[in-house]
């Protein structure tokens, strides 16, 4: 049966690599590499965004949390949907209207100082790497557990890492976009089949699933606080999601693949419905798994509950050892693995983009770099990021994956989000504010997470798992104080008019005092 899973893996990998090579032949310019020609339709982009956002953390993590901890798992899932409200209404269109390839461009457009761009690069790289490492670790754990690979996890992680490199180095944004779209479809399809089979067991009454889980484990399962014990934990989690997603570079770069703001808006709404429906049913899947498979079995397979969904698939297909069960399990695992690979590719792309485009081209070389060289530098940066990811993936063995993912989002909420929002909405904001805000946000979120319950358990110095409730205000405070306590910057304030005019109206084809953009 392991051979079957292996065979399905190979097929999916071959298909996605095929897409990658096809896309690679069409990638000539830096624009192609980063924005896939900038011509994607809203529905396609919506699917690509959904593919990105429905990562393994969602697919496996939310259903696992719901299976073991009930409502806290459902709150994680709901948060992931609400995450896009602020993006839709505050950030997606303005950023599309002003930037070129990366979030660093928005800030540079406003501030026109290398320190600002440098700070933006730092924020991007830290967040992306923090997000990348748990994906690698998750992929390795998945393969190790489900394929029964007897070798050390490290070899598996290397395999995942190498696979990811191939996608991005050769394909760029075009390839990863199509991979996301192509992957989103079987992901949603598999979830649909899974939910249908589950409901069939309960007479198509979703409430019966809740009742069954409660019957087996008592009403406490459905109550909040089983996982997020501190009363401020839930709120802090919500703050991370609500504001951190706008600061996730690998998600935000997907708004540059569409031709204009209206398309960006529509793709965000498509995403909210596609991924939202998916997140809604992870609760059903998790509780169904608890009721039918049992928490003991789930925990035995993986302490964090990450295998609740695949185990349910196996059960509904006929149970362990049955042909139907093993086939369904193999399909689910292959889709989950493709999910991880695609997200890892997207992350590598945006991180290498920040390093190549923002750091090298703009800060180190003052913007004077030819197209061909830009693409070459981008690809070298990609290899470097991949190497780093493999190294830290090896070191991340045994660390709770969900903790690291939420940490990354909290960092984004505390460091990147305040800077982006203030760049777009506050006249008085200047480069000192960018640097101060970024520093305050990064330092506070990382430090508080390190001394929180996730890393220190019962001896934690900071009582809340998620630092957002403290570090987001600190990030904003740093940015505001940094601006107010330093000299006013006439350039930044003059640029503000151009920034808000362009951001709100989408005006183009006009002389600009900032870096040229398309």
């Amino acid at each position, binding site marked *: 049966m392991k051979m079957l899973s292996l065979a399905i893996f190979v097929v999916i990998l071959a298909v996605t690599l095929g897409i990658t090579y096809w896309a690679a032949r069409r990638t000539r310019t830096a624009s192609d590499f980063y924005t896939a020609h900038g011509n994607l339709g809203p529905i396609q982009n919506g699917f690509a965004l959904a593919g990105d956002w429905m990562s393994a953390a969602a697919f496996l993590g939310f259903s696992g949390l719901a299976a073991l901890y009930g409502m806290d798992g459902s709150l994680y899932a709901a948060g992931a949907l609400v995450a896009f*409200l602020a993006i839709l209404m505050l950030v997606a269109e303005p950023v599309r209207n002003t930037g070129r390839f990366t979030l660093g461009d928005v800030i540079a457009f406003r501030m026109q100082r290398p320190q600002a761009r440098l700070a933006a690069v730092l924020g991007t790289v830290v967040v992306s790497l923090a997000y990348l490492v748990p994906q690698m670790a998750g992929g390795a754990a998945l393969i190790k557990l489900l394929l029964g690979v007897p070798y050390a996890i490290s070899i598996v992680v290397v395999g995942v890492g190498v696979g990811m490199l191939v996608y991005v180095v050769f394909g760029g944004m075009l390839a990863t976009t199509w991979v996301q779209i192509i992957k989103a479809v079987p992901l949603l399809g598999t979830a649909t089949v899974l939910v249908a089979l589950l409901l069939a067991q309960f007479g198509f009454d979703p409430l019966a699933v809740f009742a069954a889980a409660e019957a087996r484990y008592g009403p406490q399962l459905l109550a909040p606080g089983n996982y997020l014990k501190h009363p401020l934990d839930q709120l802090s989690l919500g703050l991370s999601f609500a504001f951190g997603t706008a600061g996730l570079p690998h998600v935000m770069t997907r708004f540059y693949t569409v031709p204009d703001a209206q398309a960006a808006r529509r793709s965000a709404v498509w995403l909210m419905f596609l991924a939202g429906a998916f997140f809604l049913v992870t609760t059903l899947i998790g509780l169904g798994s608890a009721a039918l498979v049992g928490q003991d079995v789930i925990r035995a397979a993986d302490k964090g509950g990450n295998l609740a969904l695949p185990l349910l698939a196996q059960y509904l297909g006929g149970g362990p050892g049955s042909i139907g069960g093993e086939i369904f399990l193999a399909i689910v695992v292959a889709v989950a693995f493709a999910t991880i690979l695609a997200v890892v590719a997207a992350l590598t792309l945006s991180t290498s983009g920040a390093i190549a485009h923002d750091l090298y081209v703009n800060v180190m070389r003052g913007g004077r770099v030819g197209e061909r060289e830009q693409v070459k530098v981008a690809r070298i940066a990609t290899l470097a990021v991949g190497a780093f990811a493999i190294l830290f993936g090896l070191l991340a063995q045994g660390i709770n994956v969900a903790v690291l993912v939420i940490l990354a989002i909290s960092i984004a909420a505390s460091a990147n989000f305040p800077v982006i929002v203030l760049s777009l909405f506050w006249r008085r904001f200047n480069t000192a504010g960018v640097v101060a805000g970024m520093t305050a946000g990064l330092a506070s979120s990382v430090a508080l997470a390190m001394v929180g319950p996730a890393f220190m358990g019962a001896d934690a110095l900071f009582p809340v798992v998620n630092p957002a409730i403290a570090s987001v205000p600190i990030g904003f405070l740093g940015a505001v104080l940094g601006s107010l306590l330093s000299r006013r910057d006439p350039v930044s304030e003059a640029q503000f008019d151009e920034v808000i005019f362009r951001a709100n109206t*989408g005006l183009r084809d*006009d002389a600009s005092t900032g870096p040229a953009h398309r």
Partner: protein
Amino acid sequence: MTILSAPARAPAAGASPPPTPRMPDWHARVEAPTFRRLIEAKRRTIGWLLGLSLGFFFLTLLLAGYARPFMSAKAFGALNIGYVLIIGIYLVTWAAALLYMLAAHRSFDPLAAAARDTAMREGTR
């Protein structure tokens, strides 16, 4: 693609600003009534939509932290109040997204187009 600094704004007293035919007056554009109307509309609509939807979300989270027995109380069959609120979060979020799209299509896009027209017609200074 070198990074330029913005030109100095204040001319010497008594002197007329040197003609820079290709440099738009962004300040004037931002002060134009058409643009101001756009910003007002956005502030009002987005303020309410985002405020109410995020408010509902955060309220549920606060209840999940500080009113746990209340959230566990049964509402419909096996669904407790907490889950009813969670379903509400999905519905409120989706509704807010659709209402935003409606507002953008009906109001923001036309106002933005008007602001662009004004900007292009007034030309540059």
